[in-house]
């Protein structure tokens, strides 16, 4: 029996990993100025307590409820319009970027030729760039460019979600069985026709499902973007927090929760029905 065998081979890596974690933890706590105790301090508890106690009762006067209703409709409209614009950009982008439509790939077992891959890179890069910048940054930029209001929100969602949808659509096209499309391409059909007859029937359900899920996310994103002035429920919540109007904030948070719940149910219904 070898003596060296009695040593646990995982001992060194575990020790090093633990030391590394500790070494990173200390500066991390310093940099983030982490202080959980602040939640338990008397004065901040008083502050929060006063704020939270103003939550009850939630504001429910006629004028405010009308404002709330309009703001909710605006949020829904921003999300839907933004998604529509996003689809306008995402569908062609995904078709161009996806290897599923590659003519050269049809005769090379699914791997496009070098020119094929190089030409697709710019579009892929663009899609990645569009989705990597957080949507609220886009919202902030658009608010500066086109002014406060829902237009900025719609454009921000359109840009970010076109990147997200485009990339995921392209991946969905590539993840399904490529042989029907390849067979059609090799028989001489055009790319779009081969795609429509060969790939689309298989992936339609998944595409719809993902799109509806993203619409639901867009609603939450619209509320968040409202904080930087892009209209809708979020803008109202931001205003009310700044004015310390606890009752209004409470009503709006409740409305937001209700909205998200309804959107979730609607999305489930649509996904079940259409797929």
């Amino acid at each position: 029996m070898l003596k060296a065998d009695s040593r646990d081979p995982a001992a060194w890596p575990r020790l090093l990993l633990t030391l590394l974690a500790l070494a990173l933890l200390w500066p991390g706590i310093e940099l983030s100025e982490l202080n959980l105790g602040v939640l338990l301090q008397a004065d901040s508890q008083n502050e929060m307590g006063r704020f939270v106690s103003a939550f009850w009762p939630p504001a429910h006067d006629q004028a405010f409820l009308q404002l709330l209703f309009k703001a909710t409709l605006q949020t829904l409209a921003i999300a839907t319009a933004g998604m529509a614009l996003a689809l306008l950009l995402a569908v062609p982008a995904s078709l161009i970027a996806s290897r599923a439509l590659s003519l050269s790939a049809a005769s090379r077992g699914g791997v496009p030729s070098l020119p094929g891959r190089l030409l697709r890179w710019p579009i892929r890069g663009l899609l990645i760039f569009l989705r990597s910048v957080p949507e609220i940054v886009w919202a902030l930029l658009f608010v500066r460019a086109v002014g406060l209001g829902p237009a900025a929100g719609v454009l921000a969602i359109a840009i970010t979600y076109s990147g997200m949808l485009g990339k995921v659509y392209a991946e969905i096209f590539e993840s399904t069985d490529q042989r029907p499309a390849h067979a059609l391409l090799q028989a001489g059909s055009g790319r779009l026709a081969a795609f429509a007859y060969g790939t689309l029937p298989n992936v339609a359900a998944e595409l719809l499902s993902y799109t509806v899920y993203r619409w639901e996310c867009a609603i939450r994103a619209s509320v968040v973007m409202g904080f930087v002035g892009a209209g809708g429920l979020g803008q109202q919540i931001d205003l009310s927090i700044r004015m310390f109007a606890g009752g209004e904030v409470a009503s709006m948070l409740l409305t937001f929760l209700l909205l998200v719940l309804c959107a979730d149910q609607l999305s489930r219904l649509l996904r079940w029905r259409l797929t």
Partner: protein
Amino acid sequence: MRRLINLLLTAAIALSVVASFAYLELDLAELGSANSLKQMGSYVQRFLSPDLSAGYLKAIVHGSLETLAMSALGTLLAALFGIVLALPAAGRFGWPLQSAARLLLNGLRAIPELVWAALMVLAAGLGPNAGTLALALHTTGVLGRLFAEALENTPPQPAEAIRLQGGNPIVAFCYGTLPNLAPQLLAYCLYRWENNIRMASVLGFVGAGGLGQMLYVSLSLFQEAQASTVILAMLLLVFLVDWLSAWSRQRWVNA
């Protein structure tokens, strides 16, 4: 019949899209007009020469590290609290505690991070502490729910066998359930870290420190050159965390 319903649904969706544009009174023609495009174009042009001076870069590095620390610590705290809440939420301690835990987790995750950040700024003041706490609170709700689902789906036999040998419940959990669960938990944490680095950049908008605060300030002061440097730093940070997360997943989850 089914076709009819699907057709009606499609028509309803198309109608709602048109209604949305109409309701917002978005003048897309106005937006796409030559004047408006020129305005946006000149605005964008001001971003194309980022400020790369040494002094500002030092501030950027500090802001990036602050944002990274916010996201990492927020996710770590959320993982710890999440696993603590997931045990009752999966029904390990009886029905009343399960309902209470689930209610708490749902409440934590329903409120978006930005709202939490605004509330935390009120409680903890401006700065990255508010951001870390906000991320921790929201992510606890998300991770707690995911952990509870994973816990419900693990096979109970290994833990039961250890109980049968005379081990107490804690040890049975650590030796029997945790090894099955750990890769799944790690995958969820990495996935949330990827999301949180994007959110951490943004929480600064309400005063929670990091790159977000720098961006908000520079945009408000119309310093586009500085703002574009911050955006570049944000992008770099997102790529870094995505790469680290993919590497960690490859090394510890897929093995």
